[in-house]
């Protein structure tokens, strides 16, 4: 059922995230960046199949909506093995997954400017947005109807920290995120709930 995601070796846990935030950036971020930054050549097993040098222009060929910044889950979650919950910080503590704040991005990208011009171009967009205090408006990919209540934390507790892929697909291989499963369709939920023999009461989700 699950796509195996390589076990993370990063230091980025919740505590580190808090440190980054508390430190307000610079020094901690530099340390974090140094620890984290490994050139792809250093990786023995590269799960990423697409090239690292992608430009925004390439995105039209990818599945899923084009985002204002070509944020590459395949690099962040795949190559760098950052935990999903480093950015989606409330997914395991709340019903809501949490959209990372701009500060979370800048925690690293204050220092990390990108290795090549294509990456640099995307990171520059982020830095400009931070400078102008204008948050990036991401295009939403997964959404549930408002009469559905889906608690992320409960599912992560039941299925483990790597459960995200169950619904969201293996984003470690997605240069641009697209909808793998039609989560809007209740059948998708029910299939799994049937398989596992868990609650299928209407008011479990609809209220």
């Amino acid at each position, binding site marked *: 059922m699950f796509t195996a995601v390589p076990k993370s070796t990063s230091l980025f846990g919740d505590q580190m995230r*808090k440190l980054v*935030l508390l430190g307000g950036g610079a020094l901690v971020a530099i340390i974090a960046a140094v620890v984290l930054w490994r050139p792809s050549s250093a990786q023995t097993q590269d799960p990423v199949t697409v090239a690292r040098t992608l430009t925004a222009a390439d995105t039209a060929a990818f599945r899923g909506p084009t985002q204002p910044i070509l944020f590459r889950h395949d690099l962040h979650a795949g190559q760098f093995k950052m935990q999903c919950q480093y950015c989606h*910080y*409330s997914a395991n*503590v*709340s*019903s*809501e*997954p*949490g*959209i*990372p*704040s*701009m*500060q*979370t991005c800048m925690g690293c990208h204050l220092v990390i400017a990108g290795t090549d011009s294509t990456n640099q171009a995307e990171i520059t967009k982020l830095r400009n947005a*931070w400078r102008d*205090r204008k*948050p*990036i*408006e*991401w*295009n*939403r990919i997964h*959404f*549930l*109807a*408002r*009469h*559905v*209540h889906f*608690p992320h*934390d*409960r599912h992560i*507790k039941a299925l483990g920290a790597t459960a995200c892929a169950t619904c969201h697909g293996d984003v470690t291989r997605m240069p641009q995120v697209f909808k793998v499963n039609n989560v*809007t369709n209740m059948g998708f939920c029910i299939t799994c709930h049937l398989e596992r023999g868990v609650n299928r*009461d*209407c*008011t*479990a989700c*609809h*209220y």
Partner: protein
Amino acid sequence: MSDQTPDNKLDRRRFLTVVGATGAGAAALSGCTTDRVQKLIPYMVGNEDQIPGIATYYASSCTECAAACGLHVRTREGRAVKLEGNPVHPVNRGTICSRGQAGLQGLYNPDRIAGPMARQADGTFKQIEWTEAITLLVTKLKAAPGRVAVLSGQAPGTFDTLLEGWTRAQQGTLTRWEPFGHEPLRLASQRVFGRDELPLHDFAAAKHIVSFGADFLETWHTPVEQQRGFAQSHGFTQGPTAKTVYVSPRMDLTGMNADAWVRVTPGTEAILALTMANIILSERNRAPADANGLRGMLGGYTAEKAAQQVGVTVDKIRQLAREFASAQPSLAVAGGVGTQHREALELCAAVHLLNYVAGNVGTTVKFGAGVTRGDGYAAIERLFGRFDKGEVAVLLVHDANPLYALPKSGQFAERFAKVGFKVSTAAVMDETAMASDLVLPSLHPLERWDDIRPRAGVLGLMQPVMEPVFAGRHTGDVLLQTGKQLGGTAASVATATDYKTYLQNAWALEAKRRRAADAVQFWRDALQRGGLFDVASPSAPVRLSATAQLTKAVGATFDGDGAYTLIAAPTLTMSDGRGANRPWLLELSDPVTKITWWHWAEVHPETAKELDVREGEILELTTPHGTIKAPVYIYPGIHPGAIAVPLGWGHTAYGRYAQDRGANVLDLLGAQDGNGFLPYQSTKVSARPTGEYRQVGKTEGNNRQLGRGIAEMMPVEAAVKGLSLRQFYEQEGHAEHEVNTEREQGAIEGFRESQLEQRKRGGYAEEHPQWGMTVDLSRCTGCSACVTACYAENNLPTVGEEEIYRGREMTWIRIERFWEGGEREGEPLEARFVPMMCQHCDNAPCEPVCPVYAAYHTVDGLNGQVYNRCVGTRYCGNNCPYKVRYFNWYAYNKKAFPEPLNLQLNPDVTVRGRGVMEKCTMCVHRIRGAQHTAKLEDRALVDGEFTTACAQACPSGAITFGNVKDPASKVVAAARSPRGYHVFEELNVRPAVTYLAKVRHTEGQS
């Protein structure tokens, strides 16, 4: 109500300021469709205190009335979504009234102004910058030393200290004023006991309560606290309950909850009180020794004389006095606005004496808390007198609306206009702001730092629970900034750069005074707790003043020669009128008349016959001071010689909801000072039927039970014996309201068996909790706090008056009010209240008729309603015997929440769209939320860990909710009461809601 449809194009900047952004924050903004929100907008900087999807609670204080209850403000994604009571606050102990909850709609009121407004030469207002506004104010103040006046609402605390210092620095005068200031009670305390304060009353300890027109469950003094005490002594546990007698020409909500209503001639309550005191003193003296000096003064008040004046029989008066004296301790209260006539001071003094001779002073009547409500009406007279003389050049009005709340006949608007430069700090353009030259909108209490000391021993704190919704500025900051700019003494008063620092400095002193080791920690603890609360309630011993003539009563006098006495009635929803711009309060049916959205004139059935009017006919009411029109509501609970019109309606400004809604009864009143207070009840009124008609938007159906057994009652003797309702009816020699025949009973049993078989199938056979509820009618007062709580919790839309006419209100829980008796003159009139919500029947009639299984039974005993399945056939509503299913006829959600009122919506609950049937869910989101938390923590649910919104708000503690399968749960204990019954039990629908019959003193009714 406005037809403005909220568009979903919330300005992005505002969106970020107010909401921040998460999926949930965005999701709550629009209706039920899936295709609107396509963008995810992140925070720039995340807030460590807020986790999306998880509520954060802040402690604060309520400012909707002077009682200053403690609040817990529930915030989600950086916006306040519900006001709940603070469980550790000594005033309200975790509960809250309707008006308090509607404070949220003051925060999100769509008519709040976006910035300072200055009057232009042509008389119109123009929005200006804050710096410009402050400069303008400073210029004006500089030019007017010694000619400054400040009129402020009653909010003792640090802000008040600053305001006082600031005013003194300008050599100005500060007047504090509350419309419902209860001056007669305070003046009477001064006269009788030499204490310039309002006493506190221990309703919980009283074994017998007599109220002389003090509406202690509605607007008088500290309603929530009093209701809690009243529920304790008057609600049934096992022994006899405190008999409660209401003495007033009008039966208001408090009167409806009394065991007996003594309908007196308007203005004669004081005579009755003194006569009772005389009887007690001469018959059975338990009074303190110095009360003997009263014998001479009271001697003339004989029952025979009083009977004539008051309109009550001699025996009845004797009975009242004897019952009052024999119960120890008893409690008499007076001083409500509803009996604030020319003899109100004498009445309050008489009641003080009555309490004194019965030995209640010091036990149930306590002095020493230093409760005051402003400087009184006399101070208003003095202030306006200074306007007349041209002594005031700059006037600052803060947290007061004198041009609405004072009678028009006093020419207050004209006199107000004589002030050269008038500044208002109103957040909404109210009547006073409209007449001002500069409006400096203050922040809502939920947006600002502040504290309030309603009495000794209670110091409540307020903290900003969210970013300001509008660009107001804390008046404290305005004072500090102007002080700095003015220089001199004013600058020395402005000891901090901003009000938060000023407040913290004051608290640092408090910490020092209390010898706290760490002032910062002291502040943090207080902030978390909601303030500083001393456990012991202060009680100072008092003695009678030496004055021989403490009071005398001859009956109040009235202006004019109309045929009827006018009663300007304070109501629970509108109070002094500040609730008139809150849609929740407008749609909340008045507990007495069940009328929504408009004012009315209460007319006795006899009087209606005399005038030849029917319900809805418009009466023209004329007094020497003015004329208004009001539709008739025929009401048996009023003296035939009186007509009552509610206070609080008829604003001429104050936003879209309040403006031009009804007429202001104050237009009929004289403004003459009644010796230190405004005598609200001092005019005779003549009534002329106009022949015009206006439908009364009331939410009641038939107000008689017609043998249906909805609201059951048991006399206190039967309840004490532990009789069940059936036993009681048998003892009385007549059948229960309706009994199934033996054959029917057999059929029901058979059906029950087959249903129990059905319950063994599928998921229903598994171990699940069964949610249930009990409602104790002996505690329920009909105050409707549960209704407003439900509106807030479950995103219920207000539908407006037109839809109410069609019976389309969306109150998932409603208070049904039934009358018993009172059909013939002299027959006692009894009111019964039943909170009616979905009964979550085990054999629910709504479930089998749904063609799409939208109504179904959950395994844990709830009657589920799946909105996304519902296709709107309304079969379920037709088949529901309780009529608790509400159909969303129009997209009410689009109309009811004009921006930014939409920010009040609870993200945990779906906002229903058009064409969906909806109803009470027993707060299923709270159940699922608690189960969810328990699962995450790998533990079982604990009884009492959560409750429904209605049960949480109820000041009486009438509602108990829990798992009926858990034998140790509170709900099981409550449901075991022999008083328990189900409404329409004979239908065999097996409701999950058990009502406990009301308990009443019925003996000696005349």
